[in-house]
Structure formats: C-alpha cells, structure tokens
C-alpha cells in the first residue's frame, strides 16, 4: 500500500464505529486483545486460588484441632456412695486396702449387680472408673478415720475409655472385639447415666494437673509452668542482650569489617535450624558446663540463644525507624552519644522493640526440637518447682502425648495444642495491639 492510500485512510472523518470490524486485521487485533484479557483473568484466578488454598489450609488445620480437642475440655464425673465396711478396712494399713474394688462393687450395687467369683465383673467396672476415686476415698478416710463403718460419697472423673463412650468417640456400632469396652460395660454406662450418677462439667483438672499415665488425670499445668519458667529465662537473657547488641550495632559501632561480619553472622544465626541450637545446648550447656538436663534453665538458655537474633533484628529496625533528626537535636543541645541513645532514641523505639521481643518469645514458646535435645521429654506427675527442677514444655508435651498409645491421649494432644495456641495468640495479640497502639509514623 502506498503512502497516499495511508493518508487517504487516515484523513477520513473519525468517530466511533468508524473502524470497520470486517477487515481481517482488526479481527486479529480484537482476538489478540481478547486473548490478553483471558490471560489476565486466568492469572488473577491463580492468585486468588493460591490465597484461598492457603486460607483453607489454616481453617482445616485449626478446625481439625478444635474438633479433635474439644472433648477433652468436657469431663464426665461420677459420684458413688460407698459403704466403708469396717470388716474390710484395717485402720492401721489404710494404704493396703483395695479401695478401687470397694468403689467398683459399690457402683455395681447401684446397678443391682454383684461381683462374680473371679472378680471379672468388678474388674470391668473398675476399668470404667478412674483410680482418682480410690485416692479420693483414701484421703477422706485418712483425714477422718471415723468414716469407717459409714457410707461415704466419692466424686471423681470417670475412666478415660468410659469418657470416650459418653463423648461419642467409642461407638456401640463398632464390632465388640474392636473396641476397648464390651457391650456389658456400655450397658452399665448407659444405666449409670440414666440414674443420674454421671454428670459432665468443664474439665478443670486438665488445666490444673501435671502429666499422668491415666489420661483422665493428666493435665497441661506442668508443661504450662515449665513453658512459663523457660520463657522467663529466655526473656531475662535474650531481651537485654539482644537490645543492647542492637543498640551497639545501630548507634555506636563503627562501620568496619568486624561489624559487617557481626551483621552477616546475626542474619545467618536467625536462619540456623532450631535443632542445631538443641545440639549446641546438649554439647555446651549440659555436657561441658554441667547445667542439669530437662530443666527450664537449660531449655531457656538454648531458646534464648535461638531468640537472640530475632530480638536483635527487630530492635535494629525499631531503632532505624527513629528519625536522625531526633539524634541530631539531642546531640545539638550537648547530650553525649550515650545520653542521646538512652534518653531519646531507645524510649522512642520501645513499642517496636517490645513487639519484636514478644514475637521472639512467642516463637521460642512454640519450638520443640531444641527441647527434645536437652531432655525436656520428661514425664512428671508433679508440677515443676523452679528453674532447676526437671520439667517439660507445652510443645514437647504435645510430642509426648502424640506418641502415647492410649486413644484418649489423641484428644488431649489436640487440647494441649489448643492451650499452646491460646497462649501464643495471646502473646501475638499483645504484640499486634502494642504495634497498632504505639506505632508512630515519622
């Protein structure tokens, strides 16, 4: 086509609809544009799908844990009136009395049954009740020996398997051989419930007890106290050391090879796998320095080293956010460098530092692998007493219960996770609150 033709085409009066849609060229262009918009639509769809996938993972994960764990927070309790037969109780050897047998026969009697000759029936009943009932009775008699010969009402949690039945987790429809309770036991449980012997309430034992071999007796309090003690150690070490290191690097350190190295080193430490810190703790603190194993002290030391780079990095960015004009103003009125930093810069950076520190603590709280390395896989039915008494921590408790064989521990593992997550959400929520409350834009 010639230039003249082009000109002729171009000088035609313009207006909407002028471009004829019939030429192959415009058709191709329109098609191309359509394809481009389709590509745009697909790309946006991929992005949206990715977000939805990520969010649904979160929902499934949390939903699954709640659905597995909720039943632990409901406790079925039974109260049984027991006649303490003086003929069977030797007041001088109370510990030797078979209290469990006494309670289970009393429970059988409630259903109008008596034990058989070989004690199979009372054994089956005993399996439905928690040993806690026996301890409770023993305690009552010890406190008041005059109760011997009278009828005492004991009240306590029902056995773990019986609890699972009440919560619908052991089903009658399952073949008898495949479940831990047989048809007779399920019948008894139904009758006990019908007679009003069994009540259900919020499971405070779970939140106040230490670990136990009996699922219905076990609780997270031991691990929670262990976690708290550990976090105190972490906080006391990592926060001051981390903040001061950051202050040094950001405000005092000259720019030279040494500080460059320090910076690279800190950034790398933040990305070292946590299990490596566990190995360090094992070799350095336990093997070389003789810090006692399994204690909140050694756990805290290891986690403090792990949290340190996070605190340093958070503090540095908080210090960086304080505008240089503040420093210049303070130096300008004759304050020393130290006074400038400690009187002006640090207080202004405080919200950011606190947020970073809380997040670092929350992260340390959820760490499991270093705990495994320094022996926090520790079973204790007593609450930890101090920094030097052996203890476990919440995430390690999750690990311990997860490996337990009893079915009831499955729900308790999930419940323990719920407690752990509740603490972490509390901490993170505080951090987010601090950030939004005190964050200042310069």
């Amino acid at each position, binding site marked *: 086509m010639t230039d003249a033709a082009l000109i002729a085409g171009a000088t035609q009066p313009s207006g909407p609809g002028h471009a004829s849609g019939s030429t192959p060229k415009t058709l191709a262009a329109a098609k191309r544009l359509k394809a481009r918009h389709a590509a745009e639509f697909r790309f946006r769809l991929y992005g949206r799908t*990715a977000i939805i996938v990520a969010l649904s993972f979160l929902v499934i994960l949390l939903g699954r844990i709640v659905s597995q764990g909720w039943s632990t927070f409901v406790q079925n309790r039974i109260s049984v009136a027991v006649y303490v037969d003086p003929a069977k109780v030797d007041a001088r050897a109370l510990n030797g009395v078979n209290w469990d047998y006494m309670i289970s026969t009393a429970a059988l009697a409630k259903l109008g049954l008596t034990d058989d000759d070989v004690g199979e029936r009372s054994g089956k009943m005993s399996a439905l009740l928690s040993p806690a009932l026996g301890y409770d009775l023993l305690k009552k008699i010890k406190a008041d020996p005059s109760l011997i010969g009278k009828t005492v009402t004991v009240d306590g949690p029902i056995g773990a398997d019986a609890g699972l039945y009440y919560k619908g987790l052991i089903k009658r429809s399952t073949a008898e051989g495949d479940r831990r309770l047989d048809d007779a036991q399920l019948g008894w449980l139904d009758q006990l419930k019908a007679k009003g012997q069994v009540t259900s309430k919020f499971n405070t034992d779970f939140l106040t007890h230490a670990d136990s071999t009996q699922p219905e007796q076990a609780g997270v309090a031991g691990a929670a106290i262990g976690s708290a003690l550990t976090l105190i150690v972490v906080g006391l070490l990592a926060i001051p050391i981390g903040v001061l290191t950051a202050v040094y690097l950001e405000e005092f350190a000259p720019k030279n090879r040494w500080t460059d190295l320090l910076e690279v080193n800190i950034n790398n430490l933040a*990305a070292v796998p946590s299990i490596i810190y566990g190995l*360090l703790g094992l070799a350095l603190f336990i093997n070389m320095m003789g810090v006692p194993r399994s204690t909140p002290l050694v756990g805290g030391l290891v986690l403090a080293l792990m949290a340190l780079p996070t605190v340093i990095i958070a503090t540095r960015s908080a210090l960086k956010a304080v505008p240089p004009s503040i420093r210049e103003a303070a130096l300008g009125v004759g304050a020393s460098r130290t006074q400038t930093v400690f009187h002006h810069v640090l207080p202004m950076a405080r919200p950011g530092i606190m947020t970073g520190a809380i997040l670092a603590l929350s992260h340390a709280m959820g*760490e499991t692998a270093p705990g495994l390395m320094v022996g926090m896989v520790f079973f204790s039915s007593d609450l930890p007493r101090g920094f030097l008494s052996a203890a476990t921590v919440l995430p390690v408790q999750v690990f311990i219960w997860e490996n337990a064989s009893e079915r009831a521990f499955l729900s308790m593992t999930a419940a323990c996770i719920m407690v752990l*997550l509740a603490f972490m959400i509390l901490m993170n929520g505080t951090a987010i609150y601090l950030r939004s409350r005190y964050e200042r834009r310069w």
Partner: protein
Amino acid sequence: MLILMVLLALAALSAGAYAMGRRKARQATAGAAGRPHSLPGYHGAYVALWTGLPAAILLFAFVAFGGRIEYALISADPPPASAGITAERMATYYGDVQSVANGQSTSAVVYEGAAKTAFDAAVAHARSTDTLARLLAAAAALVLAIGGFLLAFPKLSKDFRARNRVEGLTSAVLIVCSVVAVMTTLGIVMSLLYESLRFFQAVSPLSFLFGTDWDPQIAMRTDQVMTHGAFGAIPLFAGTFLIMIIAMAVAAPVGLYSAIYLAEYAGRTTRAVVKPALEILAGVPTVVYGFFAALTVGPLFRSGFNALGAQLVGGPLNDLGLYLGQVQNQMALVAGAVMGIMLIPFVSSLSDDIINAVPQALRDGSYAMGATKSETIKRVILPAALPGVVAALLLAMSRAIGETMIVTLAAGLQAKLTANPLDTVTTVTVQIVTLLTGDTEFDNPKTLAAFGLGLTLFAITLVLNIIALRIVQKYREQYD
C-alpha cells in the same frame, strides 16, 4: 538460696554505694566554684557499678561453671571398691551423685547394700563440697563488692569525669553483649566440630558421607563391637532432599501466587484479612503441623491411595493397584505436603516484601505502555524481583531441610534410598532426634553420629542462607 541472698545483698550494697557517691559529689561541688564535670548521679552510678558489677560477674560465673568444678572435686576421690563402679560408668555414677546431692530425682540405676552405703557417702561428700563452694563464692563476692567500693569511692571529686567512666563502661557492656552473638556461632561450630571429630575417629568421613547403608543400632553393652552399626548417610540426605522437593512443590507456587495477588491485586480489605491469617499460619508451631500430618493428612492420603489401589486391582494397572493398596500412613508425600503448607506463609511474606520493593515507577511505565496487570507482573515485576524471589526460595529450602518436628512425626524412621514419594523415608533431623532422645552418653558413635549429622545439616543450611542473604542484600541495594 544463698547465692540469691548474696545477689540481693549486692543490689542493696550497690544502691547504698550509689547514694553515698551522689552525696559525696554534691558536697564536693556545693562550696566549690565552677560547675562540676559530671552530674552527681553519674558519680553515684560509678561507685555503684564498681560495687556491684565485679561481684555479680563472679556469682554468675559460679552459677555457670560451679557445677563443673564441684564435679571435678568430688570425682577426684575414687569410689570405694565396694561400689563396684567400672571406669566406663564413672561419669554416670558421679552424675547421679551430684543430682542426688542437689535434691533431684535419682537416676535409673538402683544402688543397694555396700554400693548404697558408698553412694550415700559420696552424696554426703558432694553436699559438703557444694556447701563449702557456695560459702566461698558468697564470701568472695562480698569481698569483691567492698573492695570495689573502697577503690572507687575515694576517686570522686568535683573534676572527676564520672560520666565518661560510666559511659565507657556502658559501651563495654554493649560490646560484650554483641559478642554473645558471635560466641553463639562459635559455640555451634566448635561443639559440632568437636563431637563430630570424635565420631569420625570411629567412622570414616567418607563412609559417612557416601555410604548408602544407615543402621545405627548399636547395643549399649560394651562387649558388642561398635562397627556393627552402619553410618552411611546417603539415604538420609536423599530422604531429606525428597521431602524438601515435595515441600517446595507445594510452597513455591502457592506462596508466590499468594504474594503476587496480595502485592498487586488485593484491595485493602483483602490484605487486612489475608495477611494476619497468613501470620497465624506462620506462627503455628511445627509440632502442630506434625500432629496434623501424622493424624489427619497421613490417614487421609493412605485411605485415598488404598481406595484407588482397590479400584485398580484386577485391571491393566493391577501391580500399581496392589502397591497402592498397601501404602502406609508414614510417607514422604505426607511430610512433604504438610511442610509445604508450613512454608507457604514464609515464601509468601518474603516474596511480598521483595515484590513491594520493586519501584512503582516500573509498574507505571508498564501500565502506561498499555500492558495488562498480568503482563506487567510477568514481564517487568517478576524479572526485576527474580533475585529476591530466588533468595526467598533458597531460604525456604533451608527451612525445609532443617525442619524437624513434621518429619519426626510424619516421615518415618526407616532409612531407605528411594525417590518414591509414597514410600517411607527418614531425614537427617529425624535421625538426630532419634539418636539423642532418651539417655545420651557421649561415648559411643551412635550418639556422636547425631553431631556428625548436625554438622552436615549446619553446613548445608549455612551455605544456602549465606547465598540467599547475599542475594537479598544486593537486591535491596539495587533499589535503595
């Protein structure tokens, strides 16, 4: 208890020293002409620091290393022959003595008869040593405190440069703090190297790094020959790599597309909802993911594959069907997929930062050319952000390699050299946990092997991290 009381006493002494120092400074300047060099408070702080600091350092050193010194002292006496302690059991024996003396639980070993008497005597000895050591430490701390005070107090005068001294000390404290970070790295390297070297004395590094047979089951009895264990780590590396690849196959696309959507498409409300949700996902402890993998995803995948296998059996894919029919809960795919979920927020938040660092001018330039959003992202933003995105993926890989709990709970213990994601594999971190959980004695290759693995793990992740951080740094400099 005693140490705590001494610490409190030190605090009180320092407070007193502060008050005295300040008063002296005030008196010295009250009558004199001209302004004093430093505020009275700095004089007080100077004296207080000299009073409290050296003594406190001594006490902390005692708490940190005292146990070790006491151990040396009590184990210097050999146990009576009646205790029947062999040379190999000495460490355990004295460890027990010390824990019992400290009022901790007795160890698994039960001492009876003459051994019990000897043990009790050793415990009593340890207790008296401990008491003596504590008294000595407390006395030394008090002497240091008083000495420090006597040294510092007379120096105060109107022209004394107390502020400079205090500030000098402050910077010294700052530098000491920053050294902790370096010491941590050194500590990691030294302890891993030291224990690994001991391991490599028993097992050659070549057979460790390139051996294909991993079976560290060594009986604790001394009459068994150590070389019965096989320490070829290749199956562990392969398992780690397989799980990492699966995890990245999940995390990279989902994380990257999420980041792109959040950075380029999402409105303010979407970001306000999705970002905190991703932060929650990132904050979930790994043991929780492990629980989820082992008890939800594992059984789900298994029943899915088993059902699929049942469909295939008898058809043209009969063999595959039979194989799928007997797939177990613990497989690389489960651990990898759940680890991928864990890494999504990690990849997404790093990439989000990286994409946001691409200057707006480039976007404007592209839009002004008539590019659509996706064209702008694919042809301008992603190429510009590529180094940063690569670094983010490297960091995610390093996390995947070092991740412990998910694989411990969901991958398995069997060291198999396989590329089949439906098979059970084991990883470096799982083996470290297995080797070190329970009673650990630092005298057999089984325990030391964990440090060999740890050293390898540290080296690999360190290289990945250094490369990634270097790229990120270069990238940020480019757009600063």
